[in-house]
């Protein structure tokens, strides 16, 4: 959907993006991650053609990104805003028209969305009369009204209560199912794990990690396992030292819990062969790092 190639963006005294390249596959939910000030917003603005890169290019569906693609992109900025004194219906029509929709189409689609979100009564209300969460909903509608192929959401859940966040999340998933590609920029890693197929992690203006979530998580697995067991009666304690693994954590109790990291070159079977004579294993699972851990690890080691 989006092919970002060697993007460089420089401001007077700092570099916002330094040779960033990655591909956003079509039909996926793509997580654009990074700490504050990493350059995410700069990149999003370049994709939206709000600013132009100093070097590099972006291809949209195989074509060089140009103003004709504006109508196919929907953008929900992190900093939300609507005209306070304007009526909601009128405002949405205006924003949709700017995206190239006809007035008639805009009206129809607004009606559709208002019914869907059960906010029909808001049409003639002014933005200033709505609560912040309500305004966010209106803004979300404004973002997706023109049925864009690419939807860029910058922290779409901030300001929503859990109920409304769920509603919006369901809508995002539905849009994705209908074929829209979604770029999702956030700091909430648990939602990344839940929603995203692919991610790109930007830190200090550079791309430091990119790939499918599954792949990245596999890559970051470090042979750590958690074993829940009960010792066999003939053993009073577990043989603490083994050349097979390092013990990371060991809780002894009625049912003991052991967390180990395998030494290089050792696989789980070797360890099990070693352990099984001593214990009755109730449960064993691999500890996979969370996206949060990967994020923190990558970003802090990058300093």
């Amino acid at each position: 959907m989006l092919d970002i190639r060697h993007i460089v963006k420089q401001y007077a005294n700092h570099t916002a993006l330094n040779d960033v390249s990655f591909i956003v596959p079509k039909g996926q939910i793509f997580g654009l991650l990074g700490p504050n000030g990493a350059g995410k917003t700069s990149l999003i603005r370049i994709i939206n053609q709000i600013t132009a890169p100093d070097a590099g290019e972006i291809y949209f569906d195989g074509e060089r990104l140009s103003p004709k693609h504006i109508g196919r992109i929907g953008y929900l900025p992190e900093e939300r805003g609507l005209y306070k004194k304007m009526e909601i219906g009128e405002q949405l029509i205006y924003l949709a028209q700017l995206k190239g929709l006809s007035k008639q189409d805009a009206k129809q689609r607004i009606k559709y969305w208002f019914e869907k979100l059960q906010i029909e009564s808001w049409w003639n209300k002014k933005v200033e009369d709505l609560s912040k969460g309500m305004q966010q909903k209106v803004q979300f509608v404004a973002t997706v009204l023109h049925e864009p192929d690419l939807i860029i959401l910058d922290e779409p859940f901030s300001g929503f209560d859990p109920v409304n966040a769920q509603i919006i999340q369901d809508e995002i998933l539905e849009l994705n199912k209908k074929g829209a590609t979604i770029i999702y920029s956030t700091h909430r890693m648990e939602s990344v794990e839940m929603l995203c197929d692919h991610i790109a992690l930007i830190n200090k203006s550079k791309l430091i990690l990119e790939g499918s979530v599954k792949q990245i998580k596999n890559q970051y697995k470090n042979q750590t396992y958690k074993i829940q067991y009960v010792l066999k009666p003939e053993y009073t304690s577990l043989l603490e030292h083994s050349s097979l693994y390092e013990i990371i954590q060991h809780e002894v109790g009625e049912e003991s819990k052991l967390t180990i990291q395998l030494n290089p070159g050792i696989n789980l079977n070797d360890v099990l062969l070693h352990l099984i004579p001593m214990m009755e294993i109730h449960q064993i699972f691999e500890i996979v790092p969370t996206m949060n851990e990967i994020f923190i690890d990558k970003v802090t080691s990058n300093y």
Partner: protein
Amino acid sequence: MNKIILIIQREYLSRVKKKTFLLTTFLVPLFFIGIYVGAFYLTKKSFEDNNAIVYVLDNTNQVGKELVNNKNITFTHSADELGVQLKKVKDAGDNTSLLIIPQDFFETQKIEFLSSGKPNINTQSEIEKQLETVMLNYQYAKLNIDPDKIKNIDSSVKISAKEITDSGEAKESDTRIAMGIAMALSVLIYLSLFLYGAQVMRGIIEEKSNRIVEVVISSVKPFQLMMGKIIGIGLVGITQFILWIILSFGLISLATSTLIDKDEFIAQTEQQAAQNANPENEDMSMVASLGSALDSVNFPELLTCFFLFFLGGYMLYSALFAAVGSAVDNETEANQFTMPITAPLLLAYVLSFGVLINDPHGSIATWLSFIPLTSPIAMLVRVPFGVPVWQIALSFALLVAGFIFTTWVAARIYRVGILMYGKKASFKELIKWFGYKN
């Protein structure tokens, strides 16, 4: 291109539909009409209602007899003691006064006039006039001059000021009317440039602090948004002016024909003027001739120039205001920038009441009317005095070049400024923004 029209539409409609727009559109002409009617009414009233009663205590036994009653003043000769008379005047209250003519009046040429309240100026000048005639006659007699002969001497000279037009004809011209119109135009354009320029700035600050700007410029170019706003608000201004002109002319003719009996009023003033050929009455005859003098003003030319220079000046200054609006986060912060930007405008405005109006074709006025930053005011001040068409054309062309330049500069600052949040902008910063590539 289609999108800029959408933006213009929104900017225009959202303002025209506001209650404040309707209010100012109707109240401003009403306010001016109110002043106009009030002035008419008061002038009329001052002729009618001055039923002054003046007691005369004549110590010369000679002057008092010469005083003549008219419908403004009734003279009553008093034989009472001074103290008693004073009390009478005091008790009688308004519009009652006491005139004490001293014995040595003809030598000192001085007289005392006592009123219970503030002495009425009309009564005073009427008495002064009558006494001057008495004094004149006394002095003629003293010098053995026959007053009748003197009366036949007429030394009055009337200057008929005419202006040579391009076609070589002489045209009626009245400098005072031109001055009045020039001043009015100066105030009007100064206020409106400020008013609408500030509206552009406020609109941009609103969009920026609302953060809607990011959504909008993901759909349109920053330049389109800025120009759409400038043009939209400019059209609001023009709409307002046109409505004002229509309403004012409508209301003035309505007010003149119904509230005030114009013929009677003019007849009265003329009669008054004819009654005394004294110089003080000149302003009254001027009022009477105002109508005919106004006819000599070239209104179509004035209006055309006003609209052209308002538009040009508005485009020039609103672009600057737009740049300021994009650079700041709130209006208080904007003040440090608006001051230097509007300084040339203020200068032209202040000068328009001095140098420009007194010497409209002098070198200062001519130069100022060519410099784009000052020409909207300076040229409009000069136009009522008659300016060659080539000068107007040149000035306007320079103004257009000026606003193209300021718009270009402003757009470069604007596109960076609207995306800069929470950054305190300085002039140095603005110059840096100007230099940014896209």
